[in-house]
């Protein structure tokens, strides 16, 4: 995590001028194999969010898992967290985590977030006071996921390691 933090700090400082190498590095460092599910079962949006968030249930950075989940759903109720290209970023700035955490889930059939069919769900949690880092994380993932080649690589990843590799390519 410290390495990821430093990259985020750099990215935050440099605003939108940071390149794809930094972005890939941030994304790869944020994700760990244990925080990735390549075939989530849920077909409902809320269930899907909770299933992906469940990967962080025992993460040491998550202080109160239930609160974290509540905040994630509350945020999504305010405004859908689905972006384009079949990707969603359920996220929350919350006191329930002490460092930035990211978990990813892949749904082969897709899950509807409103009228958007979503295949990749990235759950992000950040401490409330670290709005800047949170923006870098969400921004970085959104930029990478916009690239067709990366989405294709993520769709065909056979293992969590491949999944991370696809983001770091």
């Amino acid at each position, binding site marked *: 995590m410290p390495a990821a933090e430093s990259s985020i700090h750099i990215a935050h400082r440099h605003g939108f001028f940071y390149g794809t190498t930094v972005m890939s590095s941030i994304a790869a460092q944020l994700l760990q194999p244990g925080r990735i599910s390549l075939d989530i079962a849920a077909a409902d949006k809320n269930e899907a969010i909770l299933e992906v968030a469940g990967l962080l249930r025992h993460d040491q950075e998550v202080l109160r898992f239930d609160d974290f989940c509540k905040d994630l759903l509350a945020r999504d109720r305010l405004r859908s967290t689905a972006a384009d290209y079949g990707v969603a970023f359920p996220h929350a700035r919350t006191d329930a985590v002490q460092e930035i955490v990211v978990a990813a889930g892949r749904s082969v059939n897709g899950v509807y977030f409103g009228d958007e069919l979503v295949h990749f769900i990235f759950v992000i949690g950040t401490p409330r006071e670290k709005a800047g880092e949170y*923006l870098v994380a969400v921004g970085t993932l959104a930029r990478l996921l916009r690239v067709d080649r990366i989405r294709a690589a993520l769709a065909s990843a056979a293992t969590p390691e491949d999944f991370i590799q696809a983001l770091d390519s």
Partner: protein
Amino acid sequence: MGDVIKAASPPESPKAPRVSRHLVPLLKLRVWLAERFRPTELQVTLMWAGLVGFLAGASSLLFRAATQGVHYLITRSNEGLVNSFTAMPDWQRFVTPIIGGTLAGATILYGMRFSRGSKSTDYMEAIVLGEGNVPFRSSLVKSASALFTIATGGSIGREGPLVQLAAMLASLPGRWRHWPAPRRRLIVACGAAAGIASAYNAPIAGALFVAEIVLGSVAMESFGPLVFASVIATMTVRESPLIGDSPLYKVPTFRLDAAWEILPYALLGVAAGIAAPWFTRFLRFCETCFERTRLPLIPRLALGGAIVGALAIRYPEMAGNGYSSIDGILHDKWTWELLLGIFACKILATGATFGSGAVGGVFTPTLFAGSGLGYLLGCAFHALWPHSGLTPSAFALVGMGAFLAATTHAPLMAMLMVFELTLDYAIILPLMMGCVIAYYLSIGIEPASIYSDALKRKGARLFDEQLSKLHVLDLMKPSPTAVPMTAEFNEIAQNFISHRFNYLYVVDQRRRFLGVVSLHDIKPYLNDPEMANVIIAADILREDFPTVTPAVPLTQALEYFAHHDGERLPVLDAQDRTLLGSISKSDLILAIAERSKADTTPGG
């Protein structure tokens, strides 16, 4: 796959619309500008000052044209006032100012019925005392009344209505945009400066008139916009063929042959310093006399007109504001015996017009009184030393400045005014000498200047309003723009484009303050329209933003600004944190500039 679609949950939350593509370059430009230029409220005020200057210049031209029109309708003459009065038969010389006075009185009497209440229209009061509001209708009524007096030979200056109109136009943006009082006062001051500048084709004097007499300060925070407005106003009137870019008075060449020749000018300063306070007292005495007659407004103004008319039968040269008479003096048109008569009648006519309550300025009549005094003294010195370079018209110029300095208590403005009216640099040494001596003598004789009424009340106000006694509430701009927590990137971006602030306030449904969105924070997402679709205000909210309450003293608010890089701070209700308004750093600086000069103003 189809089953999966059916099984998917129905849409629960609204999906954010796409950020329109054309918004992104605009927002980028906005960020670029904000980061490089960061225009403060003061800089924006400068832009408004420019607009006010233009409006003042345009209204000045319009007023001049209207004066000529009314003059033609009443006298059937296209000539200047003095020429048309000279060509008139005696009865018409007598009747014309009476008609003017009657019309001027009727305009005020009936016009005021259409204006709201009895609020003061005095621009000086609006600047130094009030909220910077110059009433629209009353100002128009007063200007229309002045139009009749001036067009029919009343001895009063057109700079009065010109400044009034300009100040009224200047107060409009402040009222529309709900500026706090200090900024409204400043922009009205800009209007007044532009009015003077356009009346006399004298931008430096225009700015200094307001700075020295009305604001009592040449602090750059307020002086800059005054200068800007004056310059634009002057440029506007100079575009007119009526005025052009030549000085108001064309003067014969002036020279000092020997160093000792400055001494007579110093003596002129002494004479002006003694005479000017009596001129001021004479005008007030006339006012009291007219008040004692207890005549209603229309007959009173008609009586004023009758006095002017009666004097004009003998001396038609004294008709009007004094511009032509000064020109006559400067070009040695009259013998000193004739001038003495014109001079005495002109002073009487000014007393009658001003005393009867006619609307207008006393600036031009003051210039005339000074030039007449100077010329007469100059004749005496010329008779004593006929071979020296002491010419009566040079004395007239210095007399103008010295008399003006002594009546207005603004020597700097007086020096520059005469310099600008004549654009003759050679006159500057005797002029400075005369102005300063006259000023110092006059304040010893009469502590109140010709504009003292407003200034006296200003002193009383400043006594009550020391900076520490002023609170945030006094400068607060109500109802600032705010967005809800759910505001999308699109809405946030729109707000940053249409407003100049760098922090957008976020409130809940009951308008309680939650925090701000910083323009700097959203910068990385300008290239990411998809990303922007998932960001709402709640995601990028800064909750730890400094806030103030209405009861916080300005001194304390200043400390908050010292630790905050933004231009504004949100003002919240102390109990429930409802967003009431915002206070800007520029308004605070203006308020401090106003107060600090109060500490240095004698008697303030």
